[in-house]
């Protein structure tokens, strides 16, 4: 089944622009008439992941595929990788530097929030190579 494919480059240099891709996907889903709750879950999960990408990995890219029953998102970066995924999934655990906390993030809620708002979440990470985060949100149920 073919869906709508969207691709976004995420700059790692400008924190203020983090969230542009998520905002754009949110708008697109709205225009396609998906239900508000599902749109919000997609937007929040993708936004947290975008922020992570900027904070930890110097940017990357997002591929979004929109189907009638689900939205699939791949967020890929060439950052340092996640050394301990289980720890990173714990609420409150963060390796973000202090300057990120002063911007309102780095509270250790990123990955837990992403898991909370998605139906499927899969992390492929290799130290020194990068991380691929695969997300699926079921919509219109």
């Amino acid at each position, binding site marked *: 089944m073919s869906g709508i494919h969207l691709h976004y480059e995420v700059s790692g240099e400008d924190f203020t622009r983090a969230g542009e891709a998520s*905002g754009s996907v949110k708008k697109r889903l709205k225009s396609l008439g998906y239900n508000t709750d599902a749109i919000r879950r997609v937007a929040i999960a993708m936004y947290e992941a975008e922020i992570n990408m900027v904070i930890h990995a110097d940017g990357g890219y997002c591929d979004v595929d929109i189907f009638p029953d689900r939205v699939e998102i791949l967020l890929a970066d060439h950052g340092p990788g996640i050394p301990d995924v289980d720890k990173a999934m714990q609420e409150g655990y963060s390796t973000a530097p202090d300057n990120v906390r002063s911007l309102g993030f780095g509270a250790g809620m*990123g990955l837990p929030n992403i898991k909370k708002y998605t139906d499927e979440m899969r992390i492929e990470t290799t130290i020194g190579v990068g991380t691929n985060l695969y997300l699926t949100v079921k919509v219109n149920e």
Partner: protein
Amino acid sequence: MVVKDIIDILEGEIICEGDLTKEIKTACGSDMMSDVLAFVKDQSVLLTGLVNPQVVRTAEMMDMACIVFVRGKDPDQSIIDLAEMRDITLIKTKYRMFTACGKLYANGLSGGTKI
């Protein structure tokens, strides 16, 4: 309660005017945007001492109609522009976070959760 009521209760000043008649059912006071993204309920107002564009982006993801900057903090033009494009009302109040939240709570606005 609507956005206009929040302005009155907090003796707020409008920095960016969206729809002042939008209904607000709950409130969230935080400087940590991830906490906002984790716990906020529908039709909320965000009170924060954090002044950067990610505050507006967080509100956008959560479908929030209104942001209150406490302690009289002034957002810069880039923040105002982002809010304008998203029809989000920005208010500043002279009250501190605790007092501003207390005033809204005393007027019937809750956090939207039992705890």
